[in-house]
């Protein structure tokens, strides 16, 4: 090997490295400033929530922290085994009386001197990190989010459990920004006519209290929301500008990232695959085999890392290939008709002749709407009951305005029916997955998965509805309605923050 050839290779390497930041800065430079501003708003707001939310009182946070801790200590994700916290985490959970605070909404967090001194003492002296990675139901989750969280964990390595937790929460806040940016970009592609409404939808998402609460905690949901928003964006972009090779690879990469982030992502897969094929067929205006080269390329890109992860799970990590726990459908005493009836009643009122599963009489209002408006804390802190009744007024108004826009633009809607069907399939996949997971819990007598946070991968559609509603007010009143929507979201966020704080500090 000559010195000249080596030098040339080094030169190529240097040029490639210098191209990378420049490509990145070009990509960032192409993002509208308004989108970056919305992302900044979401990050700041989630950071505020992270300071209010009591440590380990955001759903399952202790298990997710434990997973990251195990990953840092052992360089691999945990294998399922009965729960065993590390000494340092166990001491903090005990000192914060975490379990009892969760169990008893009328009990605040610790606030007397004796308990606080005990916590401070243990934070300083109990440093052991030898746990087994959290609870059985979370361990099978894929490792991507946890791997990213090892960075703030390592940065806070010299600190105590609460220092590390806060740093990890700040990374989650950045994912909130990424989600809102994805939502903004989705709106730009899907509803391009009125740029101002993109900010309305994105900002309303940034200030949604349930989203802010989840974004304030350590939970793979946060990366899932960001990837889901990016999938919506890329699909919308492919519908509007065509499915290019680069876009197909990008969608494939997003699918791979989603699969490596949280098993719930499989709910989006059918819709995403449908989207790829529909976009390709629209591009070529045919359904011939050659039409689907790009969708197949995207699926190959998605499958390669996913298969590698499955292989690592089975061959190296002694973990379930695809994850089990909440996602097992191999439950005893289950049946397809019963599962379908359960899925129906999970969202809609029970029809005559259907079995009763003890769910709510009108789940859309009593469970999902109520949860989205304000089921904070560990989903047990609620506003006064009248708030949910009053909240129906703006919610129904927004719905009516959005429908009015669709009606007024019905010619355009007809031209985009296939695209709308893809968004519908994405939503249906998520709804069905949550219902099936809940049914699985039901037949195993482990409760249910009726938590509004599981619908947050559909935030782009929520934002789309708000953007449509803004347009529905007509050209003269559009800015008035859009501003009112965002101001209402800001107020909702403020009162949500106070509800969260009062749940723990003024019970």
């Amino acid at each position: 090997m000559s010195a000249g050839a080596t030098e040339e290779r080094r030169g190529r390497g240097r040029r490639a490295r210098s191209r990378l930041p420049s490509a990145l800065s070009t990509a960032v430079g192409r993002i509208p400033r308004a989108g970056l501003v919305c992302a900044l708003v979401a990050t700041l707001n989630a950071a505020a929530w992270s300071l209010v939310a009591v440590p380990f009182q955001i759903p399952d946070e202790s298990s997710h922290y434990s997973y990251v801790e195990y990953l840092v200590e052992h360089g691999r994700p945990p294998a399922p085994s009965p729960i065993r916290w590390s000494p340092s985490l166990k001491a903090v959970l005990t000192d914060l009386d975490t379990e009892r605070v969760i169990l008893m909404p009328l009990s605040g967090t610790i606030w007397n001197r004796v308990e606080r001194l005990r916590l401070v003492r243990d934070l300083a002296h109990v440093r052991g990190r030898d746990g087994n990675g959290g609870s059985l139901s979370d361990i099978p989750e894929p490792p991507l989010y946890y791997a990213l969280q090892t960075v703030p964990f390592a940065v806070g390595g010299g600190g105590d459990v609460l220092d590390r937790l806060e740093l990890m929460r700040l990374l989650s806040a950045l994912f909130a920004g990424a989600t809102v940016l994805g939502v903004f970009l989705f709106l730009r592609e899907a509803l391009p006519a009125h740029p101002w409404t993109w900010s309305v939808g994105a900002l309303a998402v940034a200030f949604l209290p349930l989203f802010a609460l989840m974004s304030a905690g350590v939970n793979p949901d946060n990366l899932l929301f960001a990837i889901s928003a990016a999938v919506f964006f890329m699909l919308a972009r492919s519908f509007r500008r065509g499915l290019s090779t680069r876009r197909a690879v990008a969608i494939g990469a997003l699918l791979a990232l989603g699969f490596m982030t949280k098993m719930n992502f499989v709910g989006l897969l059918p819709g995403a695959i449908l989207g790829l094929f529909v976009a390709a067929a629209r591009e070529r205006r045919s359904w011939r085999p050659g039409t689907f080269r790009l969708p197949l390329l995207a699926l190959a890109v998605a499958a390669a890392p996913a298969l590698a992860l499955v292989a690592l799970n089975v061959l190296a990590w002694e973990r379930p290939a695809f994850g089990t726990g909440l996602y097992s459908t191999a439950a005893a005493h289950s049946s397809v008709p019963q599962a379908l009836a359960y899925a129906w009643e999970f969202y809609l009122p029970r029809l005559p002749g259907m079995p009763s599963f003890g769910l709510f009489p009108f789940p859309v209002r009593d469970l999902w709407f109520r949860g989205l408006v304000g089921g904070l804390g560990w989903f047990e802190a609620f506003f006064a009951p009248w708030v949910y009744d009053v909240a129906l007024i703006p919610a129904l108004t927004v719905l009516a305005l959005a429908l009015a826009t669709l009606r007024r633009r019905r010619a355009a809607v007809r031209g985009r029916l296939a695209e709308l069907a893809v968004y519908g399939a994405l939503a249906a996949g998520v709804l069905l997955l949550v219902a099936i997971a809940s049914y699985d819990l039901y037949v195993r007598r482990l409760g249910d998965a009726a938590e509004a946070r599981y619908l947050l991968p559909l935030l782009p559609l929520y934002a789309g509805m708000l953007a449509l509603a803004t347009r529905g007010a007509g050209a003269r009143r559009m800015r008035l309605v859009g501003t009112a929507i965002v101001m209402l979201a800001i107020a909702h966020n403020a009162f949500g923050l106070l509800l969260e704080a009062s749940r723990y500090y003024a019970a």
Partner: protein
Amino acid sequence: MGSVPATIAAGWLLLAAGLAVLMSQSAIRQAGSNRVPLEAAIGKLAAGQRFCQRGEVVPAGTAALRAYAYPIARRSGTLTVTVRSDASGAIVARGVAVGEPGYEPILVPVRPAVRDETPATVCLASAGGSPLGLAGEPSGTGSTTVDGRPLRGALRIVYLQPHAESWWRFLPTFLSRMSAGERWSGAQAALLVLLLSLTAAGIASWQLARQRR
């Protein structure tokens, strides 16, 4: 075009007014609780018996206790509550109440109000009337006795402040509670939260107002 700044201004005014109304609401608030969950009955307290629970930390400012003891059939007899300091062995507060039938826990005002946070033993003595059902956590820590005999389980007790106060007046107490781990004071944490929230909301408002299309 002028509608955006005007709507934003109106929104901020309404939000400020709403927060002011909320902060003015008065209620008797918790001084603290032993966070024992209400899971099940842990036992009964018959007339003439005395129930004691060690290991309580009675918060500063406690002027009443809500002991989760319920008259089982009819009006209870007199229920006497004593708070005995672990440090001095002296009774630092005492109160008497009568429970009405139903599922409402008995509210017992105590005198004098407990000035400082006090590790203590809380005792309930029933004198006549219906037996009382005791509720809390059946698998509690074994620091409870009835007439000196160990009783498995822990009674839920909530400690209440002396009088109703608005959120404005309650704010210093509220902030002092926001500092678990002592990495910063509650006031510093609250200030940072306020700063972050206001910045986020301010930028959002500016974004709406500045964008022309």
